[in-house]
């Protein structure tokens, strides 16, 4: 986050950078990079910490409304202070560690999880010129850091020395490894097409307008749409969200790997789940939804970081909506779904993207053919694989006894 201010931008657009310069100007020049980094850390923790708090409330409110009840509404006006009350409650609870637990791992697991979840925020471009660290291989870095969460969840489950936690640890490992693959494969086309692993580069590749009004986001291409869906499904699984919340399946494994956690450490897990969900959504916005770009040229007056925020929050709402609706999958179905459905689809999607890339120059009637072929390449495997996956499953009709 060292880019200089572009004076052509609007005042609001420049505001974060202006604030940054205001703060860092107090530091001597050799230390400015360090102050910059610290400032970015503070900003991320503050913004996403608040977002986490708001998200817990929003989740409970939305789940409530979906379920025909008002949700939390006792703490403060409309229950707005509920996250604070929850925080105070959770932080003031006794931290209970089982006697036979592996104390070191039991302690390290939430820390590792939270640390890796926060590290993932480093490479996401939150707005024009607003990326904490602009790495050349930002996307790779993001997913490497994300993979660490598997280790942390396994640590938590293993170290608790609880049978439910152990089962959850095994589940978490199997699940996260299974879904790492479709998750990675789903964004490879993006890298292929935009030709860069840098997150800012990918966002830049989605700038500009086709026909003067249609955004050139990857999601508006057939392979991009497919990739986006695969990415989001895998993201659901990676962040242990319903319907893939098997490690902490409360109706089967009490709370899974969280069974033996309480108080502050439990909050860490909770936070890490939401941070992970937010980071993955942020990456989805970057990769497929045009990053911080506005959806219409006429709306470009709204600052870029606001657009990023809007897209991010809509994706998060989608997570909550899905949680409110779906039952949970079973472990074997979960891994089958990954290996037999998502991975083949993602691989086929690579081919689709390759075709899209090769047919770059087609125009006129050939453009329609290009879209058609790509759509067929996306839809037909989806339908066929889906049919194979759900073979034997159908709504039934019933007979009546005489």
């Amino acid at each position, binding site marked *: 986050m060292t880019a200089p201010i572009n004076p052509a931008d609007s005042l609001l657009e420049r505001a974060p950078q202006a604030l940054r310069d205001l703060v860092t100007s107090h530091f001597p020049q050799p230390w400015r990079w360090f102050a910059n980094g610290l400032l970015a850390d503070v900003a991320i923790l503050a913004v996403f910490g608040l977002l986490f708090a708001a998200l817990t409330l929003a989740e409970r409110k*939305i789940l409530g*409304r*979906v*379920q*025909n*009840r*008002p949700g939390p509404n006792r703490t403060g006006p409309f229950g707005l202070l509920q996250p604070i009350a929850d925080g105070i409650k959770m932080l003031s609870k006794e931290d209970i560690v089982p006697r036979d637990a592996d104390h070191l791992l039991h302690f390290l697991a939430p820390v590792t999880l939270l640390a890796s979840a926060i590290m993932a925020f480093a490479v996401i471009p939150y707005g024009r010129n607003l990326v904490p660290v602009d790495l050349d291989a930002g996307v790779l870095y993001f997913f490497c850091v994300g993979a660490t969460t598997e280790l942390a969840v396994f640590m938590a489950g293993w170290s608790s020395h609880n049978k439910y936690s152990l089962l959850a640890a095994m589940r978490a490992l199997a699940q996260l490894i299974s879904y790492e693959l479709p998750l990675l494969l789903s964004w490879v086309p993006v890298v292929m097409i935009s030709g860069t692993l840098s997150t800012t580069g990918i966002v830049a590749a989605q700038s500009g307008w086709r026909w003067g009004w249609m955004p050139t986001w990857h999601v508006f291409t057939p392979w991009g749409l497919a990739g986006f869906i695969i990415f989001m499904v895998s993201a659901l699984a990676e962040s242990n969200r319903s319907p893939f919340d098997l490690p902490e399946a409360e109706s089967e494994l009490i709370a899974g790997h969280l069974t033996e956690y309480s108080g502050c450490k439990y909050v860490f897990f909770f936070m890490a789940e939401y941070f992970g969900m937010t980071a993955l959504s942020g990456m989805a916005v970057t990769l497929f939804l045009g990053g911080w770009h506005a959806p219409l040229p006429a709306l470009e007056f709204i600052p870029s970081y606001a657009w990023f925020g809007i897209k991010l929050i809509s994706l998060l709402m989608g997570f909550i*909506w*899905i949680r*409110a*609706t*779906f039952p949970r999958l079973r472990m074997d179905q979960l891994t089958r779904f990954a290996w037999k459905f998502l991975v083949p689809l993602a691989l086929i999607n690579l081919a689709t993207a390759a075709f899209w890339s090769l047919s770059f120059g087609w125009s006129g009637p050939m453009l329609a053919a290009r879209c058609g072929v790509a759509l067929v390449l996306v839809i037909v495997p*989806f*339908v066929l694989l*889906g*049919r194979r*996956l*759900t073979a034997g499953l159908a709504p039934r009709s019933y007979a009546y006894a005489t």
Partner: protein
Amino acid sequence: MLGSGLLQGLGVTAKNLVGSFHDPKRLTTVEYPEQKTKLPEAYRNFPFLVSESAEDPMGTLRCVACQICEKECPPQCIFIEKSKDKKPDATGKMQIYPAVFLIDSSVCMNCQICVEVCPFDAIKMDHEYEIATTERFNALLLDREALAKPNSYFHEIRPEEAAEVDGRLAAERKAAEEKAKAAALAKASAAAKPAAPPSAVPPKAEPPKPSASA
């Protein structure tokens, strides 16, 4: 196609999410301490003793300590001790009254059987449900002072049943009064007449023997 059932479900939840903001049928929550639902008349929760007047509840209890409810109570949560003396009840008739009437509300299961078996309409089910106490033992053992509630309260919570009970009691009272009047009249007329010659044979006092089939 895979996903059609999932999308359908998402549609229903979205409909409910939006519906809960404008459709009172979808948001049925009652904000309890501020709002309360209107209890139906039949609602029952713990018995109380009906007294005729609010001023002197102990003097006007309808209960005559017949102990039927005590016997019939399934969890045996009622304890009654009869009085040694008699007191005039609301109608002025001399009656035994309960010297002690205890209901252990920690054992009572609100089954209403005491109400059903009471021949005097003296015990009825209450509408009170905010009965939490901080003391687990003696605060839950309700004595007759705590149990007695006036007939006007009964009318307030169960207007239909109370009106029906009052009508029946009034009719019974009237019948009793008329009977008493007739008896008094007969007595007066008997007294007016010269006493009949005393019969040498005492009247047969033996009750008829039950038949063998019983």
